[in-house]
């Protein structure tokens, strides 16, 4: 069945971990950006997005992640992704996200 977009977030040391669930469309992308901004204002510069439970994305939703990358770049921060499914990884590659963001397997890889 169709499910609404949801996210949970928590701070693991200095890393903001955002776990998404459901379709990352326009509204979903906006919610991720909003959550990011709430913490970015407080100085967070390392962000991990775990999209294991988002099996559907669109390019409008992902365009909000470019805004996150831009803001993190301006402060020497970085965006990380976890649990990318292969077609979403390919999408990010085509869009050039990995020129600035990084795919990791566990949060411990973030220094």
């Amino acid at each position, binding site marked *: 069945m169709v499910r609404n977009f949801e996210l949970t977030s928590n701070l693991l040391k200095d890393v903001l971990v955002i776990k998404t669930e459901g379709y990352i469309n326009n509204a979903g992308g906006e919610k991720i950006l909003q959550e990011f901004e709430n913490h970015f204002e407080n100085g967070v510069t390392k962000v991990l997005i775990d999209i294991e439970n988002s099996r559907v994305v669109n390019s409008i939703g992902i*365009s909000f992640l470019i805004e996150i990358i831009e803001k993190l770049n301006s402060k020497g921060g970085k965006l990380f992704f976890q649990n990318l499914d292969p*077609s979403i990884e390919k999408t990010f590659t085509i869009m050039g996200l990995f*020129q600035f963001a990084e795919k990791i397997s566990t949060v411990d890889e973030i220094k």
Partner: protein
Amino acid sequence: MDQHIKLEIKLPKVTDIELVALDGLVLMGRHLGITDDKIGEARILVTEGIINALEHSGSEIPYVNVDFTMTKEKLVILITDFGKGFEPDEIKEPKIIDKFGTENKRGWGLKLMKSMSDGFKIESSKNGTKITLTKILS
């Protein structure tokens, strides 16, 4: 003879309605035993094609037709809208660096469809746009 299945959908302009087509794609792929990776990439094509078509479908005919023809070897996706059309050659290739510092970070749909498909054709006029996407599945 090769098994050949079709799914035809006329979608109204309703938030997230592209999910209807994605489910159909997944179920047809499962029926024919197509790998998740191939179907995953086809899902990206379908999503991008439909959201473009819905965004630009005119207010007079706020519908988009989506037709799938699938065999074990190949998927052909046809997406038709009745909007004002556009000139594909005038669309600049997006680059992530160019998006920094600008308000609008969008403009990725055509590039994704071009890069992830095995065939991509656009026919567009002032009466609407038809895109044909091909994906090799075998």
